[in-house]
């Protein structure tokens, strides 16, 4: 199987099948069974098809043709067991694809650095890390470009050398994301068939009261829900497969509009429509920043493409963003291009001076020399931060995180999808995909944003009593983890956490949905003891909770999926903190976050499932959900537990896969240019034992403490939560009101805007209108004079004169127009004859000499 042609085909299939389903449901949805019953089946079939295609792409094409690296992490060589496994796998895969081995020759890094690169663009094999190890982590031992397949399907438009295309950029991250998204979406679809069955008949909305006091009764919208779900999946796949930033933006907005539709699914509810509006508008704020970033990059790089464009022979015709910024000559380190420097110089002459100075000084090998190459760096910084703004909006980072908790107004399957695999994942995914473009300074911004988000959201989650709201803030907090990790240079850790989180958060949300479905309320204070009534939900959710707090045996390789990813993040934070003492908060924030996470997650679980029922009536009516909902729960639970594991007998694990698509030039420890003290450490350094040990212990102990605290309060009831609430009343109020964010925004943004609008309106009415009325009156008076003097005599006279002449002329000429067809024909004939005669006269008298010669030819 040729991955260069098969991967795009398979993934395009997986991408487009939901679109087909969307279109079919759009046009025929109403007629698919009663209330569009079969629309659900169709959409589910479509997403399952996508999943099958995605997994085919993964296991049928990607893995056979791109063997995983022998040892995934340098750090794990300390364990000793993985190195062996890796070797075995390499051999076994190699024999099955013997023909391909020659094509993907493994170049030792040493050769890469020295000779002039026998690198055939995207087919570059992953570098042998053993060789990399031998060379140490010096600047030259940087890995080459990751294996990727890029290309274009369709060109939307072209402006000179600039063009917008529909293309693809496929590396292992893309394939992994495809598998993850399609798998979770499939589960959600199945789940939704059960969850949304209320919509299969006329639906009475208990939360909407009409003017006459009755509850709103409306036809079910089952098919429409699945229509949106299909479009949602299609859009998400579009972002993942996108080969350029413009295409990402298109599907970015599509995801936004889908979330708008889905959050506002119960459009009659005021809260739902407001939440939908909020989500959409807040996202637009972020997208504005993203547009600015895109403009900055496009104007200076001239391309949106991630990968290189090659012609039929594999020669590079046009270089993509990544290879423009990480040039071979520069040892694949991030450096602004010539065009960026020129652009920056043109815009800000001040910076250009610093180049001249710095170029002289940088010759001396002083590490603490004044910043060099500031020109271009700023542009790159703006571009990176701008694009990150979009991710801030989409992934609900501080300060645009306010929409996500409100987004739970949509049906629970939507929340599960939005919070795990699609919408919020898009932001993190884009940061990961766009990672090579971020300068260390931009990464620092990302890290701080992530850190703040993580802490704020976690604290808010402590006090929330709405089961879905707890999970929503938990999502925001976990997204903060991912951003933090990415910002600290932990690319694999961040992306890994994205994937593990998708599974367990999808699971958690669906479990909460199952609970809500069973007890018909969101409020945890009315639940309790439900594990007896709904055991499957309870224990799958317990698995999810253990996964999210990162339960596992410390300093070993045994644990739930969250254990691997969260520990990797904390290790990276420790690694970062050890090199940047000034940013120590970034080191400890995730640890604190782990404590809070463990606390609120188990608070949730205990309040819901453990103890005695708080509301007997609801408890009596609670029931386990149908099979169509619980089976996806079980499936997801299995994944939530095991997604971080290595497949026995192989070295197939998610991190190894992700390692294959590690962005070019990120492995080396890099240093800030604008902030020279800033050091983004090599991710593999985090696996060093001296970092791994304290980090692992810190992570485990904090999580255990959080768990313990929750158990003390809510299971053993040694501490009364109400008393705690009373004694920490101001803090509780602060957290209960979500740090007053909505109120702050109201006061800081909305109120001034309204005030300004009022002022402007007053200005408009009072001053501009007065001027207008005045000038109108003046004009009116003037025109009266002009009318009497000029218009009546001069203009009218002229017009009348022309009319009179025309009239007389017409009277004369009308005699020619007899209305007789035959006479007209005679005129034509005579005209022709006269024309001929005239031409011949002209020709013969030599008036026009060239006419005759033309005729003779």
């Amino acid at each position, binding site marked *: 199987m040729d991955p260069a042609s098969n991967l795009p085909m398979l993934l395009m299939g997986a991408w487009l099948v939901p679109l087909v389903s969307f279109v079919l449901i759009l046009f025929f949805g109403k007629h698919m069974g009663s209330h569009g019953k079969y629309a659900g089946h169709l959409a589910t079939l479509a997403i399952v098809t996508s999943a099958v295609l995605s997994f085919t792409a993964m296991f049928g094409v990607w893995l056979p043709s791109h063997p995983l690296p022998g040892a995934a992490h340098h750090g794990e060589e300390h364990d000793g067991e993985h190195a062996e496994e890796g070797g075995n796998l390499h051999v076994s895969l190699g024999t099955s694809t013997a023909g391909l081995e020659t094509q993907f020759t493994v170049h030792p890094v040493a050769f890469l650095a020295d000779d002039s690169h026998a690198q055939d663009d995207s087919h570059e094999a992953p570098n042998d890390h053993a060789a990399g190890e031998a060379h140490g982590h010096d600047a030259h031992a940087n890995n080459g470009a990751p294996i990727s397949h890029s290309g274009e399907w369709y060109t939307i438009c072209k402006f000179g050398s600039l063009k917008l295309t529909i293309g693809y950029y496929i590396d292992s991250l893309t394939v992994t994301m495809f598998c993850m998204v399609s798998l979770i979406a499939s589960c959600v679809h199945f789940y939704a068939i059960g969850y949304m069955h209320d919509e299969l008949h006329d639906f009475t909305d208990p939360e909407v009261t009409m003017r006459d006091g009755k509850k709103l009764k409306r036809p079910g919208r089952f098919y429409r829900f699945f229509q949106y779900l299909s479009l949602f999946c299609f859009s998400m796949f579009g972002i993942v497969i996108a080969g350029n930033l413009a295409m990402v933006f298109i599907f970015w907005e599509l995801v936004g509009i889908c979330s708008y539709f889905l959050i506002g699914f119960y459009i009659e509810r005021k809260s739902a429509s407001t939440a939908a509006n909020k989500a959409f508008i807040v996202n637009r704020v972020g997208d504005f920043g993203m547009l600015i970033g895109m403009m900055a990059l496009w104007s200076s790089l001239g391309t949106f493409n991630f990968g290189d464009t090659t012609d039929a022979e594999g020669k590079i015709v046009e270089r993509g963003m990544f290879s423009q910024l990480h040039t071979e000559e520069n040892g694949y380190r991030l450096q602004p291009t010539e065009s960026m420097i020129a652009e920056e110089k043109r815009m800000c002459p001040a910076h250009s001076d610093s180049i001249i100075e710095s170029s002289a000084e940088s010759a001396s090998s002083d590490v603490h020399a004044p910043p060099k190459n500031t020109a271009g760096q700023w542009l790159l910084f703006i571009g990176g931060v701008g694009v990150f703004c979009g991710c801030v909006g989409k992934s609900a980072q501080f300060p645009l995180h306010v929409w996500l908790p409100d987004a739970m107004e949509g049906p629970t399957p939507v929340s599960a999808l939005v919070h795990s695999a699609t919408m919020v994942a898009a932001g993190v995914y884009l940061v990961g995909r766009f990672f090579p473009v971020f300068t260390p300074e931009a990464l620092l911004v990302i890290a701080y944003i992530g850190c703040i988000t993580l802490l704020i959201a976690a604290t808010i989650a402590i006090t929330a009593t709405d089961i879905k709201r707890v999970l929503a803030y938990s999502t925001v907090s976990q997204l903060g983890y991912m951003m933090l990790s990415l910002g600290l240079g932990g690319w694999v850790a961040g992306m890994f956490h994205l994937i593990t989180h998708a599974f367990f958060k999808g699971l958690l949300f669906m479990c909460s949905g199952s609970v809500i479905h069973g007890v018909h309320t969101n409020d945890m204070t009315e639940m309790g003891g439900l594990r007896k009534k709904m055991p499957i939900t309870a224990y799958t959710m317990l698995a999810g909770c253990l996964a999210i707090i990162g339960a596992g045996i410390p300093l070993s390789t045994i644990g739930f999926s969250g254990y691997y990813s969260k520990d990797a993040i904390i290790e990276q934070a420790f690694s970062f903190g050890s090199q940047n003492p000034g940013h120590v908060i970034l080191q400890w924030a995730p640890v604190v976050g782990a404590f809070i996470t463990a606390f609120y997650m188990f608070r949730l679980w205990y309040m819901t499932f453990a103890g005695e029922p708080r509301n007997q009536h609801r408890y009596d009516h609670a029931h386990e959900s149908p099979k169509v909902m619980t089976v996806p729960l079980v499936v997801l639970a299995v994944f939530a537990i095991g997604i971080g594991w290595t497949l026995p007998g192989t070295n197939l694990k998610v991190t190894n896969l992700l390692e294959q698509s590690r962005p070019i030039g990120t492995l080396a420890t890099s240093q800030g240019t604008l902030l020279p003290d800033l050091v983004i450490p090599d991710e593999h350094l985090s696996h060093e034992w001296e970092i791994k040990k304290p980090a692992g212990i810190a992570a485990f102990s904090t999580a255990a403490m959080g768990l313990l605290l929750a158990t003390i309060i809510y299971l053993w009831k040694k501490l009364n939560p109400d008393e705690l609430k009373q004694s920490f009343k101001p803090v509780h109020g602060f957290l209960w009101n979500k740090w007053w964010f909505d109120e702050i925004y109201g006061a800081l943004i909305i109120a001034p805007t309204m005030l300004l609008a009022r002022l402007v309106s007053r200005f408009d009415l009072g001053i501009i209108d007065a001027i207008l009325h005045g000038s109108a009156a003046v004009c009116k008076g003037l025109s009266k004079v002009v009318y009497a003097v000029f218009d009546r005599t001069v203009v009218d006279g002229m017009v009348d004169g022309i009319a009179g002449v025309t009239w007389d002329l*017409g009277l004369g*000429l*009308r*005699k*020619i*127009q*007899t*209305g*007789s*067809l*035959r006479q007209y*024909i*005679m005129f*034509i*004939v005579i005209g022709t004859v006269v024309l001929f005669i005239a031409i011949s006269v002209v020709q013969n008298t030599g008036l026009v000499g060239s006419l005759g010669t033309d005729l003779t*030819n």
Partner: protein
Amino acid sequence: MQNLILANLLTEPIGVAHYVVVSAFMFTCGVLCMATKRNVLGVLMGVELVLNAASINLIAFGSPFLRNDANSLGLDGQLMTLFVIVLAAAEAAVALAIALNFYNNHDSIDVDRADELLG
């Protein structure tokens, strides 16, 4: 200028000019037909003659038997003629419809009675 005696015509090949003469004759007949017939359909027939004259010209300019040089229209002449014929058919249909309408309105097909546009 070619000698136009009959014996010469019988023994020498004819050229484009001969076809053009026939076409000119037919064209003139058509034009006169249009100019003299009072019957709408007579006028229509005149138009057909004129179009036919045009076809003859196009065929003659493209014929390899008459003018075997680089400036010959070649097959383009025949293709054009095809279009002329098709358009003539279309024209005939429309003209006939107009004639019928005319007849419905005037109870006559005398074009001289259609002088409402008299100035």
